[in-house]
């Protein structure tokens, strides 16, 4: 199986890459920081191609797409790369929000629209958008991050039918907190890392869901019940998120 992963150098992307390599697949790992990918343990059976991409720049994405021309099509694509900006809405500069929209929304939309229907995706392939549990819960303290993840989830819902016509199925994943450097940077002080899911476990769950038939997936029981709660009592869920996160934030991190 040939797989593309964006944001493959760290966090969930890294875990996905390593798990797929362990299973013996062919992985194209795209990220802005390619150094840490080159030090990947060689014990894996699969083969890894490292590609540089700066998802803030449309030109860089275009170059990445050009490098796929004439190559074997992908069976799975994980549009995983994402960044965040936490703090009070008005304390974060507009430039940080522009970056957030570019990486979390523009890049996956652009990549998906250029991969599907262009012979870059194999028949019956899968495209996976990584949204966030904030889609169900709201996220005061990272309102624009939540906005981009909501936008991505909506985009995935919209393209489900048109992509299906092109023999590509869509999966949207809504992961809760994962124990990564990214989460540690953005979580309020004093939050427990042990409450977050290990990226390796998350990667396994997501890969299993990508093999299945579902269109959306909330990995783990916590995310599942969180989503249920958020859908049934959206106002209360967002208010609790405010208590748990927004009120505890020290200062803006972007």
């Amino acid at each position, binding site marked *: 199986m040939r797989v593309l992963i964006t944001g493959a150098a760290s966090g969930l992307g890294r875990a996905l890459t390593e798990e797929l390599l362990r299973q013996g697949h062919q992985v194209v790992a795209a990220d802005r920081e390619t150094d840490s990918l080159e030090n990947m343990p060689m014990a894996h059976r699969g083969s890894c191609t490292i590609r540089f991409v700066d998802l803030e720049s*449309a030109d860089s994405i275009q170059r990445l797409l050009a490098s796929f021309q004439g190559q074997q099509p992908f069976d799975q694509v994980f549009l995983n790369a994402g960044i965040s900006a936490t703090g*009070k*809405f*008005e304390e974060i500069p*507009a430039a940080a*929000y*522009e970056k957030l*929209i570019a990486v979390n*929304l*523009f890049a996956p*939309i*652009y990549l*998906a*629209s*250029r991969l*599907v*229907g*262009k012979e870059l995706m194999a028949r019956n392939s899968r495209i996976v958008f990584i949204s966030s549990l*904030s*889609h169900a819960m*709201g*996220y*005061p*303290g*990272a*309102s*624009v991050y*939540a*906005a*981009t*993840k*909501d*936008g*991505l*989830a*909506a*985009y995935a*819902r*919209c*393209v*489900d*039918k*048109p*992509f299906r016509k*092109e023999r590509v199925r869509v999966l949207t994943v809504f992961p809760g907190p994962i124990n990564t450097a990214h989460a540690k940077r953005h979580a309020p002080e004093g939050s427990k890392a042990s409450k977050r899911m290990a990226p390796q476990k998350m990667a396994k769950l997501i890969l299993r869901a990508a093999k299945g038939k579902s269109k959306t997936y909330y990995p783990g029981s916590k995310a599942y019940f969180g989503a249920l709660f958020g859908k049934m009592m*959206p*106002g209360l869920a*967002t*208010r609790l*998120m*405010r208590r748990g996160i*927004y009120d505890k934030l020290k200062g803006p991190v972007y």
Partner: protein
Amino acid sequence: MAEKDARPHTVLVTGATDGIGLLLARAYAKRSHHVLATGRRGIANDEEFFKFPNITYVTADQSDPRHAASTILAIMQDMGWEKLDLAILNGATAWTGPPYDEPINTIGDQLKVNLTSPIHLILALTPMLHAAQGRLVMIGSTSINKGHGQFATYVATKAALNGLSRSLREEWRGKANVMIIHPGPTRTRMHAKAGLNLRFVRLFFMSPKKVARAIQVAIRRGNEGRKIITRFGCFMARFSWAGKGQL
């Protein structure tokens, strides 16, 4: 606005040269509020176009978010506005067609006009909105509920606004009221501008006048989110993308 029409309020309406925005700008002007209307187009004579002396128009192209926000802020300072009671972020653009054919500039344009620009604007207006304990109103779309295969990026931007309003409402509790209103399919020129010929289906869409009126009621009530729909119109909208309808 708790004390209804107690004093002339300051009102901002973006995307006010056409459709719902234009009707809203006129409606608030009619109630003798001070209205600042913005849009992409250049208009030679404000008063002649809007038919109200208390509407000021400024050209602010939202496809350049930074410039649009600073232009609007500058004109507000020129007019001596210290508070902003009501900001209606209505301006939006759309493109219609299969998602895998969407040109890169229209993806970028929709994100800029519909999402980045409102964010820039909210950042610029925050102090004035907080000073007035004002109301920030975003205009969404009911299409975010089920999605729409031919409007994918547009729906994504509207869903993003929905998410933004949900979290920001909680953040700004006690400082200003944030809300989003989702109009259903409305008989405005947006669909034609987006490149979609609706043909007879257009007849079943809601009249912009009624939608604008419903939006005003929703703004007065100030609840978190409000959908404005007619069931049959939404049902008929499903047939609007018949494909051949492309201009």
